């Protein structure tokens, strides 16, 4: 219960930062995606189950503040990203200093492009308007920013998720 409260608190802080500070931190017109970063770190720290739930909630929260895309689109994308990161963490990814930044780098880029792909599948064709180069730039910048922030955020999420790790996660930790 405490872990869920802590994760809820982190979601709130991430939402606050995303809806206030993020638009002022644009690099070449691209703003960071703190909600996606939180999702990735949750998948890394607590596995696919928690990664998917945190991603879903993070997506729902940010969807409240988006207007050009349907409510639930970010939730759908982020829960898939959180789940995938959790599964990869269990099966492929091994502990190391570069685990968090490297995963954040790749998963963020995939997350941005997945958002566009899923959006197009539900009729949001305007998401492709930046063109291939523009989309690559958005994905790349979000990925780099998230990779830079990944180490402190993943430690924060690991602390918050303490107690949520199930038997399988514990076994893997051994």
């Amino acid at each position, binding site marked *: 219960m405490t872990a869920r409260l802590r994760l809820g608190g982190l979601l709130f802080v991430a939402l606050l930062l995303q809806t206030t500070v993020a638009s002022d931190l644009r690099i070449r017109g691209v703003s960071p995606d703190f909600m996606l970063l939180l999702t990735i770190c949750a998948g890394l720290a607590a596995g696919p189950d928690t990664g998917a739930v945190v991603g879903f909630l993070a997506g729902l929260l940010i969807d409240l503040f*988006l207007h050009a895309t349907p409510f639930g689109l970010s939730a759908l994308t982020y829960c898939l990203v959180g789940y995938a990161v959790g599964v990869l963490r269990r099966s492929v990814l091994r502990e190391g200093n570069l685990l968090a930044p490297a995963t954040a780098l790749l998963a963020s880029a995939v997350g941005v492009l997945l958002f566009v792909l899923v959006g197009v599948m539900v*009729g949001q064709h305007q998401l492709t308007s930046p063109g291939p180069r523009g989309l690559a730039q958005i994905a790349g910048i979000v990925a780099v920013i998230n990779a830079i922030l990944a180490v402190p955020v993943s430690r924060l999420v690991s602390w918050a998720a303490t107690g949520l790790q199930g038997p399988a996660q514990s076994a893997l930790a051994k």
Partner: protein
Amino acid sequence: MAVYRRTARPRFVLLLLVLSALTLVTIDTRAGGSGVIGQIRAKAHDAFAPVQDATHSALRPVGNFFTGVVHYGELKSENARLRDELAKVRGQQLQAADAQRELQLLLDQQHLDFVGNIPTVAAQVVDTSSSNFELSVQVNRGTSSGVAAGMPVVAAAGLVGRVVEVSAKRATVLLLTDPTFSVGVRLTANGDTGVANGRGRDNPMTIDLVPPNTRLNHGDVLLTSGLQLERFPKGIPVGRVDAVKQQPGALQEDVTMNPIVDLSRLEFVQVLQWSPQ
């Protein structure tokens, strides 16, 4: 069996979440952004607005603090009392200059010729969307000030966008450069019209349905057409023609246009209390 249990639960959770998200997407798409989900969004905006305002207010003094630190560093030879006094005076001057600038911006918007007799609501831009796929701003006026969804929004130079979502205290304005935005424009004095479409940040707008051989020049100002059932009243400046290309055999000219309003520096806007006839 244990292995099955480890992998099945997350998959079940994921399936549940994906289905939930798809249901929400379907409901919101069918409701066209309004309905129950629109109301939830509006409530969330109102509930979150004070926290957002507090955060913005908290960040502003931090910037002022760093400015002050730099300033004090240049005055090492003076004693503490003079430094304090000087800082206070300069702070007041900066505040006065900022207030004067904001006042001038508001005054500039008091007599907009293209607005005519349409009643307006002055609003301040308080936030910009942090999404990389949506170009919108939030203003500090909502239904309690008479703002409604669909109302056009202008600045001193011309069209800014339209209100797409409104709560009691806030409204979200979709900027005309957003890829989902379109507006009818009058091309020339002979009545030809076209449809201007947003193409995203830093990209010029495109104008569709421009008949071949339409006389347009770089820098021409295009106004809203105001045709029947248009979302905007007639005669609001939208943008300046950027480029005109005529492809051989094409059924229309390729025309691009830059917004006449600098959308990256919006501070105050006017919401036109106008709806299509």
